[in-house]
């Protein structure tokens, strides 16, 4: 197992945001993390990124406990993309990629920036300030930042939220293509069920901090007797105390 989550919990004062979750992700697989708002997805990702201290449990990456890694050692191998965080608005696209490339210790940085900007079609607004870009452009720049270090583990939090269908499709296609060409393990948190069906090898459903179901999309849809993942999601989200 490349990533193993064992009995992971997070208690914020009296609120148990994540309640003893267990799952694993095999190397080079894409797993979807689904659930209604406030179910503990972002908290789980935060703990995997080392931004939130777990109250209990273990995060094991490549057979090594996250705590035993040096902070910079593990973070060099991970990256994260979310529309809810931004890059410095007053820096140009190129400057942002340069700064983050240096922070991640990327070798042959100029070549890498050129390569990724051609792939994501961001070269034509390279010299514009990031704050002046449209949502779709910002989103692609943010994705470029998250791939600058060719991460072994990529955590994506709603990567296509607020994008128009065309740009959303471009981003999904790019992630698919990137995954096929590179060795990358992806954890994708998303509310777009079509996106999850398209990109994920398997899914984990969360509710009220617990994992309530898991499996491949087809298995879960079939198990709950629904026609698609959206209907299955609604059934699980609206059901009372349905645990695995």
């Amino acid at each position, binding site marked *: 197992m490349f990533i193993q989550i064992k009995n992971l919990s997070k208690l914020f004062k009296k609120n148990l945001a994540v309640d003893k979750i267990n799952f694993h992700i095999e190397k080079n697989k894409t797993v979807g993390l689904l659930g209604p708002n406030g179910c503990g997805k972002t908290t789980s990702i935060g703990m995997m990124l080392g931004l939130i*201290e777990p109250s209990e449990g273990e995060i094991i990456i490549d057979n090594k406990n996250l705590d035993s890694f040096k*902070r910079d050692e593990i973070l060099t191998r991970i990256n*994260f993309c979310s529309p809810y965080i*931004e890059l410095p608005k*007053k820096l140009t696209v190129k400057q942002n990629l340069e700064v983050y490339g240096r922070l991640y210790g990327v070798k042959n940085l100029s070549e890498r920036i050129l390569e990724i900007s051609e792939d994501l079609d961001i070269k034509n607004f390279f010299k514009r300030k990031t704050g002046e870009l449209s949502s779709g452009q910002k989103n692609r720049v943010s994705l470029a930042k998250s791939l600058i270090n060719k991460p072994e583990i990529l955590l994506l939090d709603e990567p296509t939220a607020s994008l128009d269908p065309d740009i959303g499709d471009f981003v999904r296609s790019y992630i698919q293509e990137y995954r096929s060409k590179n060795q990358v393990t992806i954890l994708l948190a998303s509310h777009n069920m079509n996106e999850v069906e398209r990109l994920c090898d398997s899914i984990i459903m969360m509710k009220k901090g617990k994992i309530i179901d898991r499996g491949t999309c087809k298995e879960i849809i079939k198990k709950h007797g629904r026609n698609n993942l959206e209907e299955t999601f609604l059934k699980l989200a609206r059901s009372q105390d349905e645990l695995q």
Partner: protein
Amino acid sequence: MNFSKIYALGLRHIYLISNSLPRIIDLIYWPTVQIFLWGFISKFFTLSSDYYSNTVGIILTAAILYDFLFRISISFNMMFLEEIWSRNFTNLFIAPIRISEIITSLTLTAILRALIGLVPAAILAIPLFGVSVFKLGLPLLFLLLPLYLFGVTLGLLVTSGLLRFGPSFENIAWASLFFLAPLGCIYYPIEILPYSLQIIAKGLPLVHIFEEMRNILLNNTVNYLDIIKSISISIVYFILGVIIFYSSYLGAKQRGTLINMGE
């Protein structure tokens, strides 16, 4: 310590400054206004009072040194606040850069920001008021060192507050230096303070720095004991500041505030 990463984080702030002419003007504008204001006040005192004769140099030099402290501290805070304002905080804290490297980078970039503002103002004071802070010679460096350390310490304390209480702590960032200024005895000797406040003031490096500055300018002698005292006190505060910063960072990880820190 990885100096390439320290440079990378510094580069982010250098780009921020170099991309914006208004930002450069803003950095220079406030120290210059400060110098003008204190220059004219000093001149008025000299002309109107026997007591203040020959004090233009002292008051203006004090103003420049205090502004150096102010700029260092504000620069440190500003660079940290920039990450919050631009919602870049999470990106920074998931990058493979150690907390010690973040502190080092902010410390080094703070002096650059401070000097961009202060050097033109200090040079301007020479032809306008006939006062050159550079006349202090080598001891100037000994006075600037504890000011630099103490400015960074105040920055560390304010950023610790930002980590602990979130962006709402921003207002304290601006007020922090004004709170200490009366006890710093920047423009007046320590004897002016009531005895109880003198005891507190002696625990700050500022009193020793500004007393020594007046001693150098008035008596043309350097009391190295005072300088060593000010540097030692500054180092103690700096270490305390670093410990508080680390503990605030760990506290923020416990509370989960690093992931959604923003405006």
